[in-house]
């Protein structure tokens, strides 16, 4: 299927002030495209959690959204440190976030499960010390 439109947002590690901008920009774009509002909400939640994961856990990365005629594909890629045990990371409540992040209400161990719950298809791969890549697909209908 042909990709109609794509946007890419660079995400900086540790930037809690600007963290959330990617999902808010993506939301504006989806509104302009006339995507159904309940679908937009799911995309917002997934994209925001993925974005904050990069801010909290990684050394930086990017979020890329590719829009097709009937779905959106979001790739959240970061350059390390990687997840040693993906099965464990997918469990609700499991978290490796710092105390500071937790005090700010992040790192409750719901990030990955929330992303998965909000999406129709969810893929994750990671290599310790190198990268983590999450790919999700959400259909418009």
């Amino acid at each position, binding site marked *: 299927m042909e990709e*109609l439109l794509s946007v890419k947002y660079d995400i900086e590690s540790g930037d809690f002030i600007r963290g*959330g901008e990617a999902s808010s920009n993506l939301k504006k774009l989806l509104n*302009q*495209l*006339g995507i159904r*509002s309940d679908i937009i909400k799911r995309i*917002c939640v997934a994209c*925001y959690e993925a974005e904050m994961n990069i801010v909290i856990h990684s050394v930086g990365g990017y979020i890329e959204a590719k829009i097709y*005629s009937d779905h959106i594909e979001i790739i959240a890629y970061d350059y390390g440190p990687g997840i040693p045990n993906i099965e464990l990371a997918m469990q609700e409540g499991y978290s490796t976030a710092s105390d500071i992040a937790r005090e700010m209400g992040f790192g409750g161990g719901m990030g990955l499960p929330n992303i998965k719950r909000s999406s129709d298809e969810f893929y994750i791969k990671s290599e310790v010390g190198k990268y983590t890549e999450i790919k999700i697909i959400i259909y418009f209908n």
Partner: protein
Amino acid sequence: MKKLFHAVGLIPEKCIGCTKCLMNCPVEAIRVKNGKAVIYNEKCIDCGECIKVCPYGAHVAIRNSLEDITRYKKKIVIPSVTLYSQFGKQVEPAAINEALLKLGFDEVFDITFACDIASEILKKDIEKAEKPAISTLCPTVIRLVETEYPSLVNHLVKMLTPIEISALLTREKYQSQGYKNEEIGIFFLTPCPSWVTKISEISRNENIRINGAISISDIYPKLLKHIKSKNNESNSHISKTGLLWAYSGGQCEAIGVENSISVDGIKNVIKVLSDVENGRLDDIDYIEVLACPNGCAGGLLLVENPYNAERITKSIIDKLDFTYQIHDFSHIESKLVSDEGKKEVKYKVPVDFESAVKMIKSMNNIINILPGTDCGLCGSPSCKAFAEDVVKGLASIEDCKFISSGGFKNEG
């Protein structure tokens, strides 16, 4: 399609075409065309920011005048609870109500009664809305949710506001006394323009029709002349819990919902609604959301400083020892369901998906040749908004002073 009425209007003769309103409108609803500001009605949320920032008095709040009440046989006034905070802490509510009668009204409806009813209904309605439930007292907030955050419509509580409840009870009372509908004139004393718009909207519903909105700032000097009693013993028979609705946080206190937050000021409201949309605030039960600083006490059409108004209100509350005991409101509850949340989500892009994609692609192409300085000289609030305007045929690329003077010099 109903015509959109907005209480925020413009006097073109006073507008000199500066960029103040353009740059300060939180929803980018203003453009400058041919040297005059233009408000796009479908985007305007009646927050009144443009009225606040305009140095030339060109933006105005449309409202009724006191003379308009003479058209009715029975004249009833519903004062906003914020009225009682406008005359210092020595003037008690009963004295203010007496002064209102001297201005020509036959009855001052006690809005704190309606606030107490609304509190009881709200306690139940919070349970029914999607978490976190969002308050619907502020018409600007409702409009903002509908236009910019349509995915949050199910979070809005469905209760009628105290103003609507007051109108319903008043009209019922006088109808049962034999007055014809057109003989009953119900007027709201409003702290803000957004309620003027809301009143024009709800007037389509016979039961809760309000015949007009009078600005508190307009009748303030007239009231001052009539207010007499000072330092008297309190004989005001109004509800202390009802008065809480006057400032930010008071509503949450009145209904006693603990797991809640109160947010006020339009920029803060926008931030919090974005957080709700991102799922960050799902564990909160209720969010009291008010567009003005410190809630209704910060309304544009009030006289007192919003923070001092809160202090005055608290001092009045301290002297009161009365609250309406609302036990059974089921007989009126059936009539009190708002149609707010039932509305279909209005936000629709008038084009199909393919052409929307094309539109965004051409927008991006235009953005790439714009300077990105958001100077506002083209009449749009930002380069991005300008690109969208060009694509939608609302502006011409030549309107950009940067482009029309030759664009970037090639620096090789």
